């Protein structure tokens, strides 16, 4: 009588509240990471772009150092990075367990990834508009904030949607250190209890969240691109 689908019992009185909590934890981790890592990544990306050789704050030495750090962190598989920075997480957050503790390594990773995406977007700005801005008397900082960043808003919006999906991915792995969330939920109630329906429900919810964000980003980018 035992088929794949009835291998685990789906007791909704337990699973229901756990699912709701998992969704909340995922959204909490993802949104906070997107906010903190997104802002820090924006700043780091702007510094990377503007310190490139020949750019507005050209400083090849600083650029090399920052680029080295970003390149050092980015290729590390997140799940390994998670345990590697554990001592630092304990120092800064006070604990290495739980949702809030998971956010710390997620933010570092998100900052690095975002900075690269921001830098790549900014590179595409035509030097002509920067020159035009200078010629009108704008300072370098005003040129960055009033001209360069507005010019790349559409690719930036799409870049952040891409980052968002990356953070969803990270949040699932963060579940392994007690971060909770949908990834953890899928493993605990689905995979470990041989209940694929639970896993599929998690997958479905993740897909819905990702699709909503992606569609919203597409809409926003299109709106911005209309000119």
């Amino acid at each position, binding site marked *: 009588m035992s088929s794949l689908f009835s291998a685990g019992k789906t007791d909704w009185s337990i699973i229901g509240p756990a699912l709701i909590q998992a969704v909340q934890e995922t959204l909490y981790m993802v949104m906070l990471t997107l906010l903190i890592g997104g802002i820090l990544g924006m700043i780091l990306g702007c510094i990377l772009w503007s310190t490139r050789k020949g750019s507005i704050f050209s400083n090849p030495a600083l650029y090399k150092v920052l680029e080295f750090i970003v390149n050092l962190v980015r290729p590390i598989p997140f799940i390994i990075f998670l345990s590697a920075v554990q001592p630092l997480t304990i120092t800064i957050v006070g604990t290495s367990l739980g949702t809030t503790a998971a956010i710390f390594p997620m933010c570092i990773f998100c900052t690095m990834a975002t900075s690269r995406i921001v830098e790549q977007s900014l590179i595409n700005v*035509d030097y*002509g*508009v920067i*020159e*035009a*801005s*200078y*010629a*009108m*008397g*704008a*300072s370098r900082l*005003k040129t960055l904030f*009033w*001209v360069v960043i*507005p*010019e790349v*808003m559409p690719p930036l919006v799409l870049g952040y949607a891409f980052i968002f999906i990356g953070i969803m991915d990270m949040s699932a792995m963060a579940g392994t250190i007690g971060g909770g969330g949908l990834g953890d939920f899928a493993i605990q109630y689905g995979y470990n209890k041989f209940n694929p329906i639970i896993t599929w429900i998690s997958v479905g919810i993740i897909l819905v969240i990702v699709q909503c964000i992606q569609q919203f980003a597409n809409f926003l980018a299109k709106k*911005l691109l*209309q*000119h």
Partner: protein
Amino acid sequence: MSKEAIVSFVNAKKTFKTKGKEQVAVRDVSFDVKEGEIFGIVGKSGAGKSTLIRLINALEKVDSGKVLVDGKDITKMNYSQLKHIRKDIGIIFQHFNLFDSKTVFKNVEFPLKIQSKELGLSDGERQKTVLELLDFVGLLGYEKHYPSELSGGQKQRVGIARALATSPKILLADEATSALDPETTVEIMRLLKKVNKEFGITIILITHTISVVRLICERVAVMSEGEVVELDTYKNVFKNPKSDAAKSLVNVFKILEGDGSLHE
């Protein structure tokens, strides 16, 4: 009637270093542009025209020599002095360099915002100025359009309105019509002539064709390999070119305009 010099190059020199190689863009150039005139700088690509014109608003800095704008040496200015004087120097570009993410209105308003402290305009006055400028260049009603919705000629008109926003004394035109068709070129040149006449703005334009110079310039400097090899009224240069560079430019012009032909 002797007019004052508004721009003076005094032994201006500019060298670029690319991959260890030194390339002289401007080699010991000295001449004056007089207030109120339309002055042309003509020469082949790579003759140093673009660099020379950028020395006037300090987008490029000289290695040695001086560049006097309205009597003040622009090469020794700090940022706030530069900002102040850039209010008096408008520039338009070959590829317009409009801000694609901003509407026509916002593009023209931009220099007014940058220079808001210097100008001290209220929001209402700023808006009035922008609309007057758009009216002047014939683009009233296009305030809410984005640059991508405009033709090349219209884009350059926006560029001109933007360059005139802070009521400059000098307008620099960097190959302003090189990306436009002949008909639009004439239109834009007519507009520049109007700018010169109505506001008395000195115009310094660079171009690689003598035909543009012929349309509106009184005097012209011929550049070759970073040097000014000839400087005279347009008429004299055209009738009696002395340097090889000038002869070549006039010759090419004649071939293109119908005096000559490549048919055997």
